[in-house]
């Protein structure tokens, strides 16, 4: 099948609302005003997602991520542009599209508040036309994978956030949709719960071949799960490609962090191709270095100067008790891109 799972072209979504007045009688004047403001939440977004891909869809708050997801799922009708999911136009063919996708919105639940979790699953099975044996099999599998056993009979309102999210993931995947949208699935979860969700998503993608589109603010999610990321801000795609290339392109440096054996504070010799970056750092535990030990970083571009050469040069010049090579964290990369609003070509 050559047809991509998702094809979006020139996708635009505008929202219009009456102007809010300020000043005397603001409430009343807002009520009668005919003036309207239009905001463009998504401004000409184009991309394709192939079958079996796991794509991270990233952007700051208000960038247009959720609005895009809602157009892809058929909840919102695009103002202009085209979108096709598995060969269908989601908003026109909403009910057929709904059968082929699973959706988890981290901020809201599709489960029925007053009913036990199990009842919600049975209802989902009925809604999506799942027959009994398939339902039992799927539920058994997810109960094991996501460890749902102990709260299957608890009403949803009594679940913790982590439990509810596992429930929501199950509800979204119960009928085996080939495409899964996850809109901030780990928001507000503790580390253990996050890890469990990630493991589940990775397994679903690897074992079932489910195509996954993931939006998140947790870059650990992205690093663990996504090979490809789409970066969006102000409704436009800033970057579309793999994660390693993004990092290389945007912050093409690496740090060799060393803990010096002596506490001398003289100037340091930086080998060719490196610069010294002295930020307050403390020595790692277990190295035998005192708390007052001087820790410095030599920053270099690994494409220009190979890492072993830098290590050799630095250790030849200085007596060190510990060393570590670090990549800039993704958080810093993304923060840099968000604040500058552009990706370097």
């Amino acid at each position, binding site marked *: 099948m050559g047809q991509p799972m998702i094809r979006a072209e020139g996708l635009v979504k505008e929202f219009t609302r009456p102007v809010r007045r300020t000043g005397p009688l603001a409430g009343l004047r807002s009520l009668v005003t005919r003036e309207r403001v239009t905001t463009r939440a998504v401004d000409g977004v184009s991309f394709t997602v192939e079958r079996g891909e796991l794509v991270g869809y990233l952007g700051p708050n208000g960038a247009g991520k959720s609005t895009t997801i809602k157009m892809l799922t058929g909840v919102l009708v695009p103002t202009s542009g085209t979108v096709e999911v598995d060969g269908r136009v989601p908003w026109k063919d909403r*009910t057929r599209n709904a059968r082929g996708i699973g959706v988890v919105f981290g*901020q809201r639940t599709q489960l029925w508040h007053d009913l036990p979790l199990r009842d919600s699953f049975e209802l989902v099975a009925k809604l999506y*036309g799942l027959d009994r044996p398939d339902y039992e099999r799927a539920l058994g599998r997810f109960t094991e994978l996501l460890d749902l056993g102990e709260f299957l009979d608890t009403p949803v309102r009594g679940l913790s956030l982590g439990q509810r999210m596992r429930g929501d993931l199950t509800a979204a995947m119960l009928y085996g949709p080939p495409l899964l949208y996850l809109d901030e699935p780990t928001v507000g979860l503790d580390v253990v719960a996050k890890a469990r969700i990630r493991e589940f998503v990775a397994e679903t993608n690897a074992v079932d071949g489910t195509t996954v589109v993931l939006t998140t603010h947790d870059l650990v999610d992205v690093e663990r799960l996504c090979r490809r990321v789409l970066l969006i801000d102000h409704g436009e795609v800033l970057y579309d490609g793999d994660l390693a290339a993004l990092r290389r392109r945007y912050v093409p440096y690496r740090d060799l962090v060393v803990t010096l054996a002596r506490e001398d504070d003289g100037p340091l010799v930086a080998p060719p191709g490196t610069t010294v970056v002295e930020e307050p750092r403390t020595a790692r535990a277990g190295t035998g270095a005192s708390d007052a030990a001087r820790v410095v970083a030599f920053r270099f571009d690994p494409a220009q100067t190979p890492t072993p050469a830098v290590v050799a040069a630095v250790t030849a010049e200085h007596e060190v008790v510990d060393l570590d090579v670090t990549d800039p964290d993704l958080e810093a990369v993304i923060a840099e891109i968000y604040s500058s609003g552009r990706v370097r070509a």
Partner: protein
Amino acid sequence: MTSAAQVVALVAIGRQAVRSALAVRSEVLVSAVAVLVRVVLVVLVWRAVYAGVDEVSGVDGPTAVAYAVLGAVFTNVLNPFWRSSLEMRVRQGRIAVDLLRPVGLVPQTLAQQVGTTAAAVPRCVLAVLLALAIGALRAPAGGALGLLAFVVSTALGIAVALLCNLLVAMTAFWTLEVGGALMVYRAVAQFASGALIPLWFMPGWLRGTLEHLPFQAQVFTPLSVYFGALGGGDLAAALAVQALWVVLLALLAQLVWSRALHRVVVQGG
């Protein structure tokens, strides 16, 4: 999805709505007490109104009291609380989840409302039993056939009411907030449907106007059938008018929804 699968899905939604409505024990209890108290109060008031009077506008005391009882019961069912109604789901942004279901929004909402209505049946039965016990209600006119006509007319009346509720709630797609509109609508509907005061008591011009609106098909028609106020030909015509309203309102609901589709906004991210 085949239509059989659609039906299975809709039945499942309806049953879920029944269970959700009955999930909180205190709420079930309070709403049962509320309808019982209301029945007792209308009985007291209408008996007082008819004290020493045989007939008003050709309606005798026992009929007026019984009408008031059934009116109270109908109101209780047809003006459900806000919970899970469409406008609330629009306001909270939960509409996003509804739109992800492989069932159309209009049938889905109606199935949900039918479930909520069905959940009100036990407390209505209680209210009717209480009214019978205090001698405020008598069996429907016309024996078994009369009862059947009443059941059919009631079903049609409920369908008209649910469709009207749905149409008003759908204005939320344009205004995002229909609290005020719904309150006005409910006040008008209670009055114009004849749930508070029978249309028999209304001046000719008002009654003539109300007869052209869908509200009287919600309550006044079934209750007229109950009291045998409609003879053979009139009965058939009344049921036909109700059925016509159901068809018209259903078409209108689909039309409004096809326009609303482009106006969907999911509030709260």
